[in-house]
């Protein structure tokens, strides 16, 4: 039996994390009481390579940087720190699907400097000439060897680097177990079947073709990325059948889950972690049939107006210390070994962030074909119109 020599108990750690996330205590208090602040400082002293390089604070990068990203994906305190260090304010535009980001970029003049594409979209962006190659010389905190390759490979197309990894994650569903009456929910079959029965009017699906159509396909055991018309037709029938029982079609499901309007939703890892931390009855579940494993990246769109600020922001956010704070805030796992070295054991062993191997193996990375396939896009549009 190992003796618990940690400076803080697991329960107290989680409680303090919750209070910090809610905004009830300051970051300094949190870092202090959990010992993380000390740990970071000690590590920084012991391993100089880990100390944040102040590259992003050099020179005048302008007064703003526009970021296009996903919901609940960052620690606001990090942005404030960035503004303090560089004088540039971060404007955050939030999107619920890669299709929306692509549409905005295709229409031209998006005004973004940095955006967060998912692994399967990058080849399309390169093909449509909407993205710029990354000049790693401007990213002092970028260390290619520190990234796990399966979560970093999609960032390079034909040998050129276009995107650097932010975090990875999975797509499952979040269920408020208080409404389950002791039953266990483990499959996508249950997700859709129970929506039509006991969870009628309480379920949400994403406003996002990849995950909504993908998980409907999983109900039948088909591939998450299928573009086969026959399989898609079955998925469409299921979705339209389920639609009257849905509470909403939205990728911004946290508010509804939090205030009890929704009890069940397709959910991403970090949102699952955030919800579970604040409301322990809400569990994050990976459907046994499978689903999506994904990796998100930072990239710079073509024609970004504030390029220096863009590089400064990316450099800042991939700094291990900053990234560690991001993880604590958003709850998504990261593929960067340097960042992982700074995270407490509880996070690294958290089953929400790091699911069991047999569940992970069943998951598929999204395929580029789903983004360009007109059938999938039209299916989603028909489903929403129905």
């Amino acid at each position: 039996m190992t003796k618990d020599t940690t400076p803080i108990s697991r329960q107290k750690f989680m409680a303090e994390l919750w209070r910090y996330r809610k905004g009830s205590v300051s970051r300094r208090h949190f870092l202090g009481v959990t010992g993380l602040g000390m740990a970071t400082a000690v590590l920084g002293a012991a391993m100089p390579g880990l100390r944040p390089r102040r590259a992003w604070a050099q020179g005048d990068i302008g007064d703003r940087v526009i970021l296009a990203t996903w919901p609940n994906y960052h620690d606001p305190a990090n942005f404030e720190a960035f503004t303090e260090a560089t004088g540039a304010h971060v404007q955050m535009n939030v999107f619920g699907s890669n299709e929306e980001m692509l549409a905005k970029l295709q229409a031209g003049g998006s005004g973004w400097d940095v955006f967060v594409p998912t692994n399967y979209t990058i080849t399309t962006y390169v093909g449509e000439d909407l993205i710029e190659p990354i000049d790693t010389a401007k990213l002092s905190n970028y260390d290619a060897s520190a990234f796990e390759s399966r979560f970093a490979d999609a960032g390079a197309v034909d040998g050129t680097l276009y995107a650097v990894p932010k975090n990875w994650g999975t797509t499952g569903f979040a269920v408020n177990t208080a409404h389950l009456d002791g039953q266990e929910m483990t499959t996508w079959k249950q997700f859709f079947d129970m929506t039509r029965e006991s969870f009628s009017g309480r379920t949400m699906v994403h406003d996002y073709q990849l995950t909504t159509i993908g998980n409907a396909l999983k109900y039948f055991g088909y591939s998450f990325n299928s573009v086969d018309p026959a399989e898609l037709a079955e998925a469409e029938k299921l979705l339209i059948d389920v639609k009257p029982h849905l509470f909403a079609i939205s990728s911004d499901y946290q508010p509804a889950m939090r205030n009890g309007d929704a009890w069940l939703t397709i959910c991403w890892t970090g949102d699952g972690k955030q919800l579970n931390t604040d409301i322990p009855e809400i569990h994050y579940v990976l459907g046994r049939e499978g689903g999506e494993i994904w990796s998100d990246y930072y990239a710079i769109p073509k024609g970004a107006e504030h390029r220096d600020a863009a590089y400064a922001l990316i450099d800042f956010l991939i700094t291990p210390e900053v990234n560690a704070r991001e993880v604590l805030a958003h709850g998504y796992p990261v593929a960067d070994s340097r960042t992982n070295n700074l995270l407490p054991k509880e996070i690294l062993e958290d089953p929400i962030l790091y699911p069991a191997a047999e569940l992970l193996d069943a998951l598929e990375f999204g395929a580029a074909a789903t983004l360009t396939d007109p059938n999938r896009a039209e299916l989603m549009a028909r489903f929403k119109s129905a």
Partner: protein
Amino acid sequence: MRLYALAVYLFLYLPIGVIVLFSFNAGRHASELTGFSVQWYGRALSNPFVMDALATSMTVAFVTAIFSSLFGTMAALALQGMTGLLRTLFDAVIYIAIMIPGIVIGIATLIGLVTVFDILNPLLVTLWPSVNGGAPSLKMGAGSLIAAHTIFTMSLVIVLVRARIAGMDRALIEASADLYATPWGTFRQVTLPQILPAVLAGFLLSFTFSFDDFIIAFFVAGSETTLPIYIFSSIRRGITPEVNAIGTMVLAASLLLLVVAQILLRRGENRK
């Protein structure tokens, strides 16, 4: 009857009340009251993006109103004396401009401009002398927004001014001509004062429409942000009471404007 009116007013002001109430919320969420605080007003006012969006909205609205009133009045004056094909064509175009849903104006402007820019930008690159860092690149922004808004608002001005002109006493104009006034003189001293209320109303309506517009800006503003766009993004970003604070401030400003206008009008009347 009075009870009914009261009920309707309550219905109208219930959401407003909710908005104002939560703008003073101490907590982060606009769905649970956790205490009283004015922090969100401070945050909204010191938020550079809010101020930026406000500035853009006001500039676009003002320029739109100027163009609309000016060109619209000119067109109204021209049209009322015309007959024939050109007049019929114009009437049809104005009719379409007013009747077409804003979303279609937004889409049409988006598609039209993107197509035009896709043709012009490469041309500019080849034709522009390579001094000062190359050709300017045409893209969506405040200009496209003003251009799109003016379509609707200019039509509004034309309709308003024409209605006013039609209701005018022609005898006055004839009398002015009989008294040897030049056409310009007649215009300046007889016509203009009479149509001025309509022109002013058109100006105000154009400003309001442009300032409050979301749907056209959503499609056409490109990298610019107007206040409605900012508010919409805030709703997607995660609702904090900052949005409530902004809404309350806009409401208060409108109220103030109305009160000031009323006082000025009252004083103008008293002076007469």
